[in-house]
């Protein structure tokens, strides 16, 4: 009895001591992964982006409304011919106290465009022909081909500006302490455990950030991450599992911050005979009951897609074509017969067992396609293997779970463009249609919004006709916060994975 009482007392004391130990203005962020790198120019995933957007700012970034927000550039102009971008820098400081100048911007872009460098978006940014710096506060980008989409790529977390002096010293040093001009300075990275950031007092936005420090704690296991939020070990988590979304939404004590962002679908290896035929791909689009996917893999949460995965409000979205397909087994069978496969065929579907929703999507597709005679073998390796198989086009077709990188319609290029690299992570391998390539090139270069919208309307028609990618549904992408955390915004649509931007507005109340 005595021991029990003593233990109880000790626990009580511990509890008392611990409450006082938590600093005010600290946010504990349960991240779904430890970033494999904080190198600004690479894109190893959402966890890295969230941290990067707390440390860094670009010339522009995507703001909480999903629009381009001027950041280190106070303002910018795009020339009539979409070949010249002029940026006017504001008075901002890097974390080392040095001012943000045109020379830093120039050095940053030279680093990104280095042909031997690791920049994830070098290809998209490589239309920058020259970076001119007429004075300390002005940067002029000259493009080799006209593009109105470039501003979107400049807003990405991989295009943030770092000091020229820092680059000169640390360009090839992956362990250098990051220096940026964003709301938080890099504090400490305890490998395998957490990254700590501290408030940057000289941030260029008056009164921001509100937080004194952020602890990014790595919670790889989704159940543990949810429990950590429920028990108050952390204040906010990313990647809320679909099965926990309803409970966290209902509370008490927790709140869900949702958006429809990523989509699920199928990408086809067009070298695999049956999938080289548009009729077969369309047949699949007709055969799969979207609700089977949503119920099997996402606990009933999600919105079906019966056309292209273009979010409402984005250029190319069309009310008329959004329900191009329907669940129609008869029509699917007709198309299969027309393509020469009245009795179906056998195929391998690649997904990954590492993420249950990928695996369960594959399982649902397997049973749906059995109805039109397509007999599937599922290939469900871990994620790293899945990705390397995708990189080698080592599959017949694959479950695709992804999103557009930017809010500009040029995001479609990554998914549909042929060109000289026909096997990419997110395209349908070896798919190369001159008409689609031409429309994407034209869309990128068309300045007038009305004319541009027309180009993408044509694109949508062609893309539906050929259906190199078949879409199933919008995935709900959630963050969850505990009561008392305000100001964190889940950026809308495709931008959800750039929500780290809003940490500058985030507040914690006890």
């Amino acid at each position, binding site marked *: 009895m005595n021991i029990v009482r003593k233990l109880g007392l000790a626990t009580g004391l511990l509890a008392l001591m*611990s409450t006082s130990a938590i600093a005010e203005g600290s946010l504990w962020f349960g991240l779904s992964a430890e970033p494999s*790198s904080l190198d600004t120019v690479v894109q190893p995933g959402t966890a890295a982006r969230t941290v990067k957007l707390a440390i860094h700012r670009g010339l522009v970034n995507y703001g909480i409304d999903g629009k381009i927000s001027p950041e280190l550039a106070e303002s910018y102009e795009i020339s009539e011919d979409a070949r010249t971008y002029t940026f006017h820098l504001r008075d901002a400081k890097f974390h080392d106290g040095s001012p943000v100048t045109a020379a830093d911007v120039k050095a940053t872009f030279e680093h990104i465009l280095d042909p031997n460098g690791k920049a994830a978006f070098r290809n998209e940014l490589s239309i920058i022909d020259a970076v001119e710096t007429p004075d300390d506060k002005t940067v002029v980008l000259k493009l080799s081909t006209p593009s109105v989409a470039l501003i979107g790529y400049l807003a990405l977390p991989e295009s943030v500006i770092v000091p020229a002096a820092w680059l000169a010293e640390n360009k090839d040093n992956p362990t250098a302490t990051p220096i940026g001009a964003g709301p938080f300075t890099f504090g400490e990275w305890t490998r395998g455990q957490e990254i700590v950031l501290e408030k940057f007092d000289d941030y260029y936005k008056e009164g921001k950030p509100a937080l004194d420090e952020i602890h990014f704690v790595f919670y790889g296991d989704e159940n543990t991450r949810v429990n950590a939020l429920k028990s108050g070990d952390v204040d906010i988590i990313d990647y809320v599992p679909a099965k926990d979304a309803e409970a966290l939404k209902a509370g008490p004590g927790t709140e869900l911050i949702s958006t429809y962002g990523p989509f699920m679908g199928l990408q086809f290896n067009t070298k695999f005979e049956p999938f080289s035929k548009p009729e077969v791909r369309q047949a699949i689009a007709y055969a799969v009951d979207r609700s089977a996917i949503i119920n099997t893999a996402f606990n009933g949460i999600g919105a079906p897609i019966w056309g292209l995965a273009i979010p409402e409000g984005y250029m190319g979205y069309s009310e008329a074509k959004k329900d191009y397909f329907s669940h129609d087994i008869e029509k699917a069978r007709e198309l299969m017969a027309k393509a020469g496969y009245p009795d179906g065929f056998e195929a391998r579907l690649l997904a990954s067992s590492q993420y249950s929703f990928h695996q369960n999507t594959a399982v649902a597709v397997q049973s749906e396609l059995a109805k039109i005679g397509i007999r599937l073998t599922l290939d469900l390796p871990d994620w790293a293997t899945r*990705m390397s198989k995708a990189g080698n086009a080592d599959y017949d077709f694959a479950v695709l779970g992804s999103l557009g990188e930017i809010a500009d319609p040029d995001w479609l290029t990554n998914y549909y463009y042929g060109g000289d690299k026909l096997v990419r992570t997110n395209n349908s391998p070896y798919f190369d249609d001159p008409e689609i390539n031409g429309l994407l090139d034209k869309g990128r270069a068309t300045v007038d919004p009305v004319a541009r919208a027309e180009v993408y309307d044509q694109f949508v028609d062609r893309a539906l006709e050929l259906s190199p990618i078949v879409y199933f549904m919008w995935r709900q992408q959630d963050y969850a916060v505990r009561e008392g955390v305000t100001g964190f915004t889940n950026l809308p649509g495709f931008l959800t994975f750039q929500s780290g931007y809003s940490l500058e507005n985030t507040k914690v109340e006890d």
Partner: protein
Amino acid sequence: MQNIGAFGFAIGSRLVTAIVQLWVIATLVFSLMYIMPGDPVLMLLGPDSNPTPEAIAATRAQLGLDQPVLSQYVKWLGGAMQGNLGTSLDGYPVAQYIGNGVFKTLELAFAAILVASLIGVPLGIAAALNRGRFLDGLLTSVATLGISVPVYILGSLLILGLSLKLGWLPASGYTNMSRSVAMHFEKLILPAITLGFGLAASIARMTRSSMLEILGKDFVRSLRARGMSERRIVWRHVLRNAAIPIVTIIGLQLGNLMGGTVLVEALFNWPGLSTLLVTAVSNRNYPLVQGAILTIAALFILINLCVDLFYTLLDPRIRRKRA
């Protein structure tokens, strides 16, 4: 003198065996990682971002992954022999990762063993002294239950009850002592109990059977015949003689825990070696996987060696037999 020499020889031969074991493990792990599909460079650069072939090639060269596997192996092994575990693919020394993780795993393992011993030994004694009676049956059933319940279930139940419902203890994580000593230990309690519970059961069973064996010996009967009090017999003579198997099983369990904390570390987000290892495997971070497994294996062998030596010291008969 002769005794000490023999003892030294015993240690020496054990050490040589240990080094050979480590080498075999290291080589196996090295080969396995290269047989496994998946590209570490792709994971590092972010597969979603479609890295250019140039970027992939440059990174591969920078990491030395473009070298023939055999020369990578020789280079790595050479480093490992000098205590240099190499560089993790993200640029940090592997030793830094291991250093961050190893003490956390050791701390958790020792805490679990402490919990297990504090529960298991007294229960085992009580069961032995009440052999065949109700208490014995009860304790034996509880022990069987303890061994059978998967740590994942027990841990989830503890989190659900003590943490989410009652709010007494944090559900997960790790707090550095420098930040808050109290919080540090609060976060240790649940994982230690989860890990220790099953061990307590097997310690209790071992204690019980070991005690019973000694209680049945002739010398105990003689002591009883001489009129020594039961309490004195149990505490002074039986327990001491029963101690060796108990110490052995505790030691073995401690060794097993070096690699056996995977589920508990994952469940409580305890940033130890296992968590590190699991993440490293899924990112194909070869040097980190090799370093972590080598460390776990070394700890396992070291602890077993210590246990061996410990009961050599504890029991003069074993010492003499070796000599």
